């Protein structure tokens, strides 16, 4: 490969004083001075959260206000930083949700560990865990950053969807009983 040495053009006398360049620079900054600022005034103005944003993982309830999670622990399994802890319990026979049989007794997500990868949401067969658009969570202690079930439901709220998997299951069960 041929080496080509490019000679730098010698500076003219005016350029040697640097003054024109400095003036150009000053012009640029002066122009910037009068441009509107691009800063977001954070607590009052919030950034637009795009669709599919992976914020804080939450637990959601179905359209009937019942908890969707059945404690299958797949999220606990798939969670790369092992932030999720679930203890399951059997639902009382004959109860309102008895046809589901299983529910989480405790459901904890350690938000200090969570990396917001969204695997839990992706793996959840019941669509019970959703990453929502809340991106700033804080607490005064490590313990406070381990969100329990109550807190997760409070963050998650109700998510209306059209699956009604367990409701259909219940309907089928009752239809069978009528036979």
């Amino acid at each position, binding site marked *: 490969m041929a080496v080509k040495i490019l000679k730098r053009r010698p500076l003219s006398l005016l350029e040697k004083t640097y003054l024109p360049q400095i003036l150009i620079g000053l012009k640029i900054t002066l122009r910037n001075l009068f441009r509107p600022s691009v800063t977001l005034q954070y607590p009052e103005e919030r950034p637009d959260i795009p669709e599919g944003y992976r914020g804080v993982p939450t637990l959601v309830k179905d359209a009937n206000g019942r908890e969707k999670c059945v404690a*299958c622990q797949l999220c606990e399994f798939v969670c790369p930083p092992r932030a999720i802890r679930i203890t399951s319990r059997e639902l009382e026979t004959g109860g309102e949700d008895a046809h589901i049989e299983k529910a989480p007794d405790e459901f904890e997500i350690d938000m200090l560990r969570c990396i917001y990868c969204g695997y839990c949401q992706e793996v959840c067969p019941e669509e019970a865990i959703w990453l929502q658009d809340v991106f700033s969570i804080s607490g005064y202690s490590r313990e406070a950053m381990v969100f329990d079930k109550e807190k997760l439901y409070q963050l998650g709220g109700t998510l209306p969807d059209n699956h009604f998997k367990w409701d259909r299951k219940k309907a089928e069960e009752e239809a069978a009983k009528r036979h």
Partner: protein
Amino acid sequence: MSAGKVTDGRIDVFIDGEKVRCPPGTNLIDLVEGMGKEIPHYCYHPKLSVSGNCRMCLVELGTPAMDRETGKPVLDEDGAPKIMYFPNPVIACATRLTSGMRVRTQSAKVRECREAVLEFLLINHPLDCPICDQAGECLLQEFATDYGRGYSRFIEKKVVKPKRTVLGPRVMLDDERCILCSRCVRFCQEVVEDDVLGFVDRGTYTTLTCYPGKQLENNYSLNTVDICPVGALTSRDFRFRMRVWFLKETPSICTESSVGVNTLVGSREGKVYRITPRRNDGVNDTWMSDSGRALYKRIEDENRLIDFRVNRLPVRPEDALSEALRRLQGDKVAFVGSGQSSVEEHFLFNCLSRAAGSVLNCLVSRTREGDGFLISNDANPNVRGALCLGFIDTLPEANLTGLAEKINRGEVDAVVVHNEDLTTAGIGRSLLEKVEVIYLGSHGNGASETASVVIPGLTVFEKSGTFINQQFRLQKFLQAVPGPPGVLDDLVTISRLLNLLGKDEGRLATPAAVWAVLSRRLKCFEGISFDTLPETGALLDGSAFRSLPFCEGPSLHFEPETGTVEARA
């Protein structure tokens, strides 16, 4: 090579074109499994009779054509025997191999059959894997990934069956998940001979149920849960407690009796969740008692010992050991070992007793009525270990009359006890208070309450070692969970005491280290090392102890020698 040529009684068969030699009459599924391949199946179980109702194991089968007149194989143009394939696929589980058989386990036709069978099996399946305890070890899931369609073509209403039928005190039935393979029915009929399960109703409404007025409550009922290929039968103890994929399975040995049932201990993060049998065709096949499965609950027992104590006050471990050492250095020390200690512990305990100049070594017996299957009369899993190591030369006694007499006569002023309760073994509290008791054990009892030095120990789930079962089979168990914080392994404790006494054995604090010495020192253990001991154990020569009147009756793979039984009688 001509087909059917019999050499050493074995025959040649061809699985997917690969020549395999096997004894005639071998089950096709077992053979293929031995080759490292798999024929999917639900109803077949190697330890149960063949029922052939799931139809999942369909394969294409061919035999060499025979000339009816000559009885000779028909040859084709190349001189090779002509193979006649059956027009329809056959089930592999009911196929006994004969010479020259050709099997296609992966052909397109076979695949199609399996896909169809699986689709039918899944028609009424509730698809509640998220809440199903079988998920993760479910054969429906496994084969669905291989042969499943991915979606359902079934648009009609599914049959709804009862979801939570209680079959017995330990077993729960989810009828919707049942694929009617009848493994559980056959198990109850054939293995435990407690014929309580059966099918009622017809067609898609067929339901597994107990006979009216009966329950699945025999001591082997949880085996039905193990062999259930789907999530229909679940253990009420384990139900919903932990997903199986989190469980770390550690090979272990059941301490329930001298049968030495091979087990797997399922634990997660230092907590044991369940115990399942581990296949050992020489000991327990694939079975295990329900009572043995509950033993893990002793880990978190209320009277678990955690503190090192001297005169009932907690002390530092080294202080407890030096206190124990001070009492050991008298010349009137007796040693009470345990039939539940491992071989290694027996060895070090024996070394300790010799170093301390023991006046008496004894073991406490634990006998009861066995069931002739997997629970023997002797509830001590490792009496033979103590015998082989020479810690004792007579069988254990229920009442330690010899020790009691010596205490009374003042010939013993310190007793080292490993895990045994002397107060229920013929030495009352008043008698115990005459001597200094050094108690080493995992759980508190009458002996530990009166002991002047208490050193906590580990349970079988928290340590590694070996047991010698009633067949003189040396079997290995491994540590499944860590012990309570601060508690030393019994081996470490005893080896430290030996070390303090200036003995060489003080360096041997792990089973592997003990075995390195043991295999050289004792003839019956020659050539054995802890790491290479097979999972199914190693049979030792027990002929030296033939004259001893062992209390055991017959069990699944054990027949007591007639002489001893008579002697016992």
